[in-house]
């Protein structure tokens, strides 16, 4: 082969020179001597007079493949482009060359990415889709461009690229991953609403870890909150409650969020609904019941007791006293039971509040008795007698209130000194000033410089 080649190089104008050199180039390529293959095929395509179209096409094919294999992708791309301008040996060659062009550009993108040249890499990846939009490399290239832009923290460009991917390739298997990348990029770009929508999409993906679905919903709810879209936030938390009864600790927190959001929205009916849901969920949690769920349930129960207290307070003691007192006592029993149930959870902060409220119910009854409507038909003397009787009725309730306030205040000895213990001390200072209105003595001013 070397002799033949020497002959052809010595007599390039000889009619056998081109076939000999082309044959040699192919042989070098087959044997893996890519540099020699390039050298000889380069001679073929520059022969004067030119080689035949078939030989020239063969030589360009060697040039293209050898450059590709040598990872000289710009040259490979040029050679494949040249081949596209020539008549094909077979029609199937067109598709192969086009694919090779796409591959060559894609590899240039990879090389730029490896060299840390983000701009060039993105440009090359995007050129794949521009030059060969139908190539199987095109979606991969766009995806890689988007991923590289995310890694480079270029959120706005990443979003453009990834949104384009979703639009151009709606059925591509990468779409699940694109959704996750879009969610991250929108969130990083501070576009909470769009990010939340993407996280909601993630929550519907079937090909991912179910934990990811669940966490995505939490993320979406949080982001809707950041954006101020309370309605969406409530919708998503409700979906979490609906779709994910387990894990229980998350599920009850979602209910708590819904109760908080209902309060923010002044939607008191909804708040009551979710507070009741917290109580019910905790009660049926079995082994998954936790200190946290019990605390939330106790707090919910305490708040749910509020309306029973208000209903008690609303009853005025009017004549005939027997009837109004009957209603008031009935409502008091309801309120006492409600606060008692709240206290039964044994959560310190709730117990002190419930105890305070219970004491206040007794005190309220004593005061309402004393301030009750007097019968109109009584004489002055009878009124006096009547008021003595009222006092006898009211006094035990006031005594009971004091005892309960004292039991709450006594929690200070165990180190419990929250708002309700303080309030109990304050009430006792009013009711029993001789024993409880004892303030420390402070200096008003200190003159010594020391």
């Amino acid at each position, binding site marked *: 082969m070397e002799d033949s080649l020497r002959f052809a190089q010595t007599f390039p104008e000889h009619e056998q020179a081109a076939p000999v050199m082309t044959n040699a180039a192919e042989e070098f390529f087959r044997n893996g001597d890519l540099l020699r293959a390039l050298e000889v095929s380069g001679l073929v395509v520059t022969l004067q007079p030119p080689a035949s179209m078939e030989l020239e096409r063969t030589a360009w094919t060697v040039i293209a493949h050898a450059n590709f294999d040598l990872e000289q992708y710009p040259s490979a791309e040029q050679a494949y482009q040249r081949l596209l301008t020539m008549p094909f040996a077979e029609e199937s060659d067109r598709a192969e060359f086009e694919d090779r062009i796409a591959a060559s550009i894609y590899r240039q993108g990879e090389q730029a990415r490896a060299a840390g040249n983000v701009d060039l890499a993105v440009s090359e990846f995007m050129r794949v889709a521009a030059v060969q939009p139908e190539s199987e490399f095109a979606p991969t290239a766009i995806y890689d461009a988007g991923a590289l832009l995310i890694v480079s923290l270029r959120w706005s460009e990443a979003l453009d690229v990834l949104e384009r991917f979703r639009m151009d390739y709606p059925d591509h298997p990468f779409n699940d991953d694109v959704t996750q990348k879009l969610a991250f990029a929108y969130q990083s770009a501070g576009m909470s609403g769009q990010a939340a929508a993407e996280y909601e999409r993630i929550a519907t993906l079937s090909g991912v870890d179910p934990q990811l679905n669940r966490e995505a919903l939490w993320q979406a709810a949080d982001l809707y909150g950041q954006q101020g879209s309370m309605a969406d936030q409530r919708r998503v938390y409700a979906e979490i409650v609906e779709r994910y009864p387990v894990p229980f600790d998350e599920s009850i927190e979602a209910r708590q969020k819904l109760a908080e959001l209902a309060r923010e929205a002044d939607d008191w009916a909804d708040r009551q609904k979710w507070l009741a849901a917290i109580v019910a969920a905790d009660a049926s949690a079995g082994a998954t019941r936790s200190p946290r769920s019990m605390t939330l349930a106790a707090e919910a129960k305490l708040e749910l007791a509020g309306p029973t207290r208000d209903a008690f307070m609303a009853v005025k003691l009017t004549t005939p006293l027997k009837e109004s007192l009957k209603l008031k006592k009935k409502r008091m029993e309801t309120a006492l039971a409600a606060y008692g149930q709240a206290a039964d959870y044994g959560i310190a902060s709730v117990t002190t509040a419930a105890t305070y409220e219970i004491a206040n119910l007794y005190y309220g009854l004593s005061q309402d008795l004393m301030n009750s409507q007097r019968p109109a038909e009584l004489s002055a003397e009878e009124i006096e007698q009547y008021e003595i009787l009222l006092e006898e009725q009211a006094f035990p309730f006031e005594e009971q209130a004091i005892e309960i306030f004292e039991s709450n205040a006594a929690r200070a000895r165990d180190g419990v000194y929250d708002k309700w213990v303080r309030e109990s001390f304050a009430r006792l200072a009013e009711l029993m000033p001789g024993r409880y209105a004892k303030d420390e003595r402070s200096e008003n001013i200190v*003159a010594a410089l*020391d």
Partner: protein
Amino acid sequence: MSRHSTDKSFLRLLFAALLTLTLAGCGGGAKVVQEEGEAPVEYPSDATTRYARALGFMDARDDARAIVEFEKLVESYPEYSGPHVNLGIIHNRNGRPDVAMLELQRAVEICSGCAVAYNQLGIVQRQEGLFAEAERSYLAAIAADPDYALAYLNLGVLYDLYRGRTADALRYYEEFKARRRPEAIDQKDVVDKWIIDLKRRVGAPPQSAEAGE
């Protein structure tokens, strides 16, 4: 009387004394504040003058200006505890017990023998529910100055209301009673009643207020 404790008349006397010293000492140099039975303590005239001005604002309830003056004084003279104690008092009465506590803790770090500072710290600690810490502070105040009456009273209140230690409370109320200044009439009557009530509760025979004097 504790060398720290004050009332209005005492304060006015002190202002007058400080002003006199300031006027007399225009040539600069150290000034002397001396209390009965104690060795003279020398303070820079600049410090006493500025402290008197700050105390004046505080006495007039101009807390904003008093705070500014005391804080400047703290910067210039970090070795004195008095400005910290007064800052603690001001911040606590203005609903900032957290800041007050920091000032008072700094005060007792600077002056471990200042009963007033410990007493004020104990008050804030009690308000914040730090009962064990408050107890330690009151006891430290008593250790620093066994004649400082308010610390006994406040420790009694702590034991009485917040610790359930009735007998100890009674003991400290009586210690207070033995040390209180005769002119503190407003304190006398009410604490005497507390003592009578506590004696009844602990089973001791009640003693009349008159007999207790």
